[in-house]
């Protein structure tokens, strides 16, 4: 007897956009009931591929076979009718509608094709949510009231409200805490057990190892490895396939001499707190030092950073830079004193996406290039270029639109902004979010080099290895409280995870 044909076969898929060949011959094969992981750096073509699969993009070439028969996924509706559901990274929920309304959006349960049967929809929604392990989510609540994790559950419930054979999940764990990730894994396992296939996209290799059956690796729009066993393929091999280089020495070495304890701190935070967000925090930052804040999402990490920067007004406490207390709650005072922030949401909080690299870099130092409000554009361009070259920002083109840059280079543009401003204290909130593996190593090296040149860096990251590898000193936060402070070399990932989770129900 012939073996079951694969559920999905994509072969030789190509897709070009003006100026870019996004897919250059991609092959993918997914078996029924399999968790198939799709790996690749940013720009490798993962997003384009799943959009082809969702019917949102039409491929230029190649064939797609579904249940053994060739198909054309000419629109999202076609894909959905065939049983392919996609959960995008940016959740596509309507915040003002209720959970149940979101789940059945576009295929409402109706009487006479017209009157929405709210009660029935809510009962069915409850059943779906229970199946996903979250019976506590009230189907009548507006989605906007839910946490990011719960919104994602709603998105999955929506996918399951159709008859599906395949669910595509684009970095579903990116916004989740460890315990929520555990629940996500349970859901994925449950789906696979029910015979539903999952295409799982993630940057985190350890996740893929835990739930994946097989792995397909994309690089530069091509498939470079098909159907590798997820459990047994060495990490080194996978990284090498993705990047074409070795993963070792990702973190730059700390300076041999270390920062003398006696050095005058450049940033002093005393008893800083915000009601309901974090309890009084004390910390000191010396020039040349990188201090990391480790903690879960919601532990107050970003809030501390933004309060130090003056973007949030503290309830108590004060921030001192080089001996001078800052006016609380004033971004301008913080910047004037030499603090710079690379915020968590780069696109929403830092970048002027419609503008060039130069203008993004110079925006905080404009008055330096201006006389009586008149901008000397040549001086501006030259200075911005010096700053971006210092960070090896690519392309080396000061007039490139910042939105065309990769995540890592966009982050460099933000760093260049503060370099140009001449800041002494750099606050980094999730500096490598949305930055692919290869570019991360480069960013780490840049951050370390800036510290070596005398900058004080305060780093927040939800990836514990990043904090441990990059920082000199680590503060561990739990529920808005600093629970531990130690030299980064004295901690390991397990110890930190124990500290951040301790006491929280598991």
């Amino acid at each position, binding site marked *: 007897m012939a073996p079951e044909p694969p559920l999905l076969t994509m072969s030789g898929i190509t897709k070009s956009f003006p100026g870019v060949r996004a897919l250059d011959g991609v092959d993918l094969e997914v078996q029924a009931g399999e968790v198939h992981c799709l790996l690749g750096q940013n720009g490798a073509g993962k997003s384009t591929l799943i959009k082809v699969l969702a019917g949102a993009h039409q491929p230029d070439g190649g064939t797609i076979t579904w249940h053994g028969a060739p198909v054309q996924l000419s629109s999202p509706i076609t894909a959905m009718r065939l049983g392919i559901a996609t959960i995008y990274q940016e959740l596509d929920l309507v915040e003002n509608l209720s959970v149940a309304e979101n789940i059945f959006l576009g295929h409402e349960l109706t009487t006479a094709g017209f009157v929405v049967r709210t009660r029935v929809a809510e009962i069915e929604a409850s059943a779906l949510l229970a199946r996903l392990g979250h019976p506590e989510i009230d189907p009548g609540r507006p989605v906007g009231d839910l946490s990011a994790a719960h919104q994602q559950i709603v998105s999955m419930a929506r996918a399951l409200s159709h008859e599906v054979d395949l669910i595509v999940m684009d970095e579903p764990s990116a916004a989740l805490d460890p315990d929520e990730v555990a629940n996500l894994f349970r859901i994925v396992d449950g789906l696979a057990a029910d015979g539903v296939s999952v295409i799982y996209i993630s940057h985190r290799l350890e996740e893929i190892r835990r739930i994946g059956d097989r792995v397909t690796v994309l690089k530069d729009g091509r498939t470079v490895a098909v159907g590798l066993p997820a459990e047994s393929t060495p990490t080194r091999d996978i990284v090498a396939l993705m990047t074409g280089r070795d993963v070792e020495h990702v973190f730059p*070495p700390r300076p041999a001499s270390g920062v003398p304890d006696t050095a005058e701190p450049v940033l002093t935070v005393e008893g800083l707190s915000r009601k309901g967000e974090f309890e009084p925090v004390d910390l000191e930052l010396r020039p040349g030092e990188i201090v990391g804040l480790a903690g879960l999402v919601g532990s107050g990490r970003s809030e501390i950073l933004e309060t130090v920067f003056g973007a949030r007004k503290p309830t108590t406490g004060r921030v001192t830079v080089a001996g001078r207390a800052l006016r609380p709650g004033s971004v301008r005072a913080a910047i004037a004193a030499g603090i710079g922030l690379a915020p968590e949401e780069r696109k929403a909080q830092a970048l002027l996406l419609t503008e060039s690299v130069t203008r993004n870099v110079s925006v*905080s130092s404009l008055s330096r290039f201006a006389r009586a409000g008149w901008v000397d554009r040549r001086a501006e361009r030259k200075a911005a270029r010096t700053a971006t070259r210092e960070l090896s920002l690519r392309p080396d083109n000061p007039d490139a639109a910042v939105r065309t840059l990769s995540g890592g280079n966009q982050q460099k543009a933000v760093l260049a902004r503060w370099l140009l401003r001449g800041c002494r204290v750099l606050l980094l909130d999730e500096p490598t979010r949305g930055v692919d593996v290869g570019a991360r190593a480069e960013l780490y090296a840049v951050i370390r080099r800036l510290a*070596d040149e005398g900058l004080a860096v305060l780093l927040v990251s939800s990836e514990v290895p990043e904090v441990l590898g990059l920082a000199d000193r680590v503060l561990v936060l739990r529920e808005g409280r600093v629970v531990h402070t130690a030299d980064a070399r004295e901690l390991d990932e397990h110890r930190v995870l124990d500290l951040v989770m301790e006491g929280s129900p598991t």
Partner: protein
Amino acid sequence: MTQPAPSAQHHGPDLAKPAAPPPRQERGPRALGLRADVRNLSLLGVLAVLVAVGGFTEPDAFLDTGNLQLILTQSSVIGVVTVGMTFVITSGGIDLSVGAMVALASVWATTLATQEYGFAGILFTAVVVGVAAGLVNGLLIAYGGMVPFIATLAMLASARGLALQITDGKTQIVTVQSVLDLGLPDAYVLGIPPLVLVFAAVTVAGWLILNRTTFGRRTVAVGGNAEAARLAGIDVRRQRLYLYLLSGLCCGIAAFMLIILSGSGQNTNGNLYELDAIAAAIIGGTLLSGGRGTIVGSVLGVLVFTTITNIFALNNLQSDVQQIAKGAIIVAAVLVQRRTSRHGET
């Protein structure tokens, strides 16, 4: 910035500066500016077509010097308002009260009491009333946290009401001869009416401010991403306040121009200017969502609308047809822009 010392134990990716920087890429850079230029060029093309149509259908009447002067003069008042509006829209805001501010400034500046102070009194009052109304808008929006649409809608209603109260619905005739003289052919400089010169001056000033000053940069930054602007150290609220002040100032100047043009002040002045100004800015290429603005485009937008009105009038087409044509042009211009901007992106 100091050059980092290349360290021997540097194991990470090589971050030393490239020995030879790649050749300067001068193409990409200009592309950003060029795209706006192309958009302006296409509008210039539309204008050329219109002139051709006008010259073809009514060769004598349309190309007459007097008629061309009329088109420019008619463009001037709304043009000055549109320059102010362009700044506000570029910053991500909107000013619905411009027409009402023009009306209020024009009637306040032409009361019998004001006219006693002569030329200076009328000019001063028009400008101060415009700025004051803009100040109220700006304070409500920047510091009162009101949505621009609502705050300026309220100003639209109350400024019109106040203008009606001042005039009691009557036309206030201007008797100050030095003001009226500016509207007469004797005052033309090399055949150009003084109002057109004012319009030109405001346009040049607006272009310079938007493109060459920190004020302009901050306007674009606030419109592109207000939160990012705030976290980059820009005083977003003060910037917003200034922008509505600027719009009010433009309305004050426009009111004075309208007084010269009509020899009177009326509470119905500037009717629907807000829509004309917004439409001209949008077809010029200024993004309604903010973050991109072009003074040249706005001015071309104004000229296109005025020219259409003129041609239609010369051909004895009624204003209903004009209105329909205007609407069609707005739709067409925005559709064309969407296409070009999508092409521009990769």
